[in-house]
């Protein structure tokens, strides 16, 4: 008997009875607190709590200028966003290891989640997944209209299985492993900056 058959047989033998039914999850999920601030304001506040930053920019040119302003010393800016060309296009990357020297990664996110202060990124946007974790700094472009309130809303919107990799990124990489002191830039990105401007604005 294969391990698979063995395990499934053991599970079938031992499943507790009575069986419990799958509960209904109401949609939309009833939140009992009234939100006084807008979803966007909520997102910006929570992102800041998680160690990230957010700024508004008018268009692609303004975003480009902002990146230069925020990271004046950056030598390698790898962009996955056509409106914001960096020094290297992620489409030209053959192997994730090539991204080891990236100072700033630029990506567009299709969705933000206010309760988490998180942006959603998939292989579709990243092109090379490692861009999200090997770049020293990340700049994420987000349409302010693409922010939802809760994780319930987010999971309903995204096509989870459509991409091999998808991450809710809430701020930069962090750790509290040494005496509980929160440090940003543990193993992944040192900073996460969200630039708000609508997609399609050139």
């Amino acid at each position: 008997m294969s391990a698979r058959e063995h395990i499934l047989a053991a599970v079938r033998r031992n499943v507790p009875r009575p069986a419990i039914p799958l509960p209904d999850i109401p949609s939309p999920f009833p939140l009992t607190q009234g939100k006084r601030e807008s979803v966007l304001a909520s997102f910006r506040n929570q992102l800041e709590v998680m160690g990230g930053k957010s700024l508004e920019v008018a268009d692609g040119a303004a975003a480009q200028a902002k990146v230069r302003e925020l990271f004046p010393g950056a030598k390698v800016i790898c962009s996955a966003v056509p409106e914001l060309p960096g020094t290297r296009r992620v489409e030209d990357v053959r192997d994730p290891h090539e991204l080891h020297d990236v100072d700033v990664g630029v990506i567009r996110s299709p969705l933000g989640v206010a309760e988490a202060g998180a942006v959603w990124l998939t292989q579709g946007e990243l092109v090379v997944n490692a861009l999200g974790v090997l770049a020293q700094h990340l700049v994420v472009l987000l349409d302010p209209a693409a922010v939802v309130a809760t994780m319930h809303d987010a999971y309903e919107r995204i096509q989870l299985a459509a991409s091999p990799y998808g991450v809710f990124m809430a701020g930069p990489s962090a750790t509290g492993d040494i005496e509980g002191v929160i440090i940003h830039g543990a193993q992944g990105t040192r900073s996460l900056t969200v630039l708000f401007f609508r997609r399609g604005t050139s």
Partner: protein
Amino acid sequence: MTRAVDPEGRAERFIALEEHEATHDRLVWGMRQHRDQAVAAVPEWEQLRELASQIKEHTLTHLDQYLEQFEQNATKLGTQVHWARDAEEHNAVVYNILQSHGAKSLIKSKSMLQEECGLTPYLQKRSIEVTESDLGERIQQLSNEPPSHIVVPAIHKLRSDVAELFAKELGTDPTNTDPHYLTESMRNNARPRFLAADAGMTGANFAVAETGGFVVCTNEGNADIGASVPPLHVASIGIEKLIPRVRDLAIFIRMLSRSALGWPITQYTSHFHGPRRGGELHVVLVDNTRSERLGSPDFWHALKCIRCGACMNTCPVYRRGGGLSYGATYSGPIGVILDPGFDLRKYRELPFHSSLCGSCTEVCPVKIDISEQIYKWRRVVVGNGLLTITKRVGMTALGATLSHSTLFHAAESVGETALKILPRAVLYNPFNPWGKHREMPTVPRQTFRQWYLENRRKP
């Protein structure tokens, strides 16, 4: 005969390190307080808890169906699914996968299951270099210690301990105890290893049957590095990690990090559905006593655990004695109810390493009756004849005395006489643990019963 872990002795030694114990208690209680604040901001928390508990109970009572559904959907996505009955088989399967790809170096992100299976020493014996990518786990790896906490594995260490360790292992400045400096040093030390690794290994917090994908929650993004840089990604998943649908995932993701550290989610909530572009993805579904526990009416609810660590944060015993006092993969209250299931002889003392305060049951996001299970495990230990001799004899004598009023009253007079007349040096001796840190109670003139008979008994 497996040597039993002595949690009381270990705890005593940790408590003797005053600065360590005080810092540990303060930091861990701090995590409980952060959890309280985060939960207070979610008024629908109890509803989420109830749903989370029911979803898990539903899944576990239909586990075979969900395992098959997961395997089917994962395979459709191009994921290679393996099965392992126990720790040995898990390690062999993983080694096989690595070997067949010529992988000689591995970066691992935090996985309690891999710790449970003893994967790292197994691979190292077979000349595979293993680097823990999570900072806390790496600290523990370099210290030759298991993790002391599910979420913050090195929380029992002071920054000075880490500075000393890094000076020895990484060549950092031993006098610089700044956590920023130490973290940056580890970042620079680990990064080349990540870039050179042949394979990345992760665990999984949740496996979604509906899609055939799984979710890994980290704060450092180390799982993402392991999955996105090397061409081979292997994930070990305990069979109890299954949940039915994507919409169920929302409930758990909302509760996990709030319960753990008081944040709404971890910095990285990473979902894997099939191999990445240019890579390969393997999943090992592991039983290792889980199907057996499923068949236990008293203890199967422990399988609902989502590994948030809230129970250990609130536990007064864990906070004082430290996570290493449990001597097992899982520490704190969840450890007390899981570990004896792996080895009853070795962990027979753990159920007594608790004051049964019940706080763990209250904070558990999936409503595991942890405290009640701790109480039941005591009966199992006794029922298997594993109670230590001193406890056994003490309880039998006590039980006999308290069954009969004459015996009880006689014992009262003897006890009270002893307390009254014995000199301090005799009363407070090494065999009297009470007296080590406490004064003995003073003796009243009469018992209640004597007072009642004297003053109230009708003639």
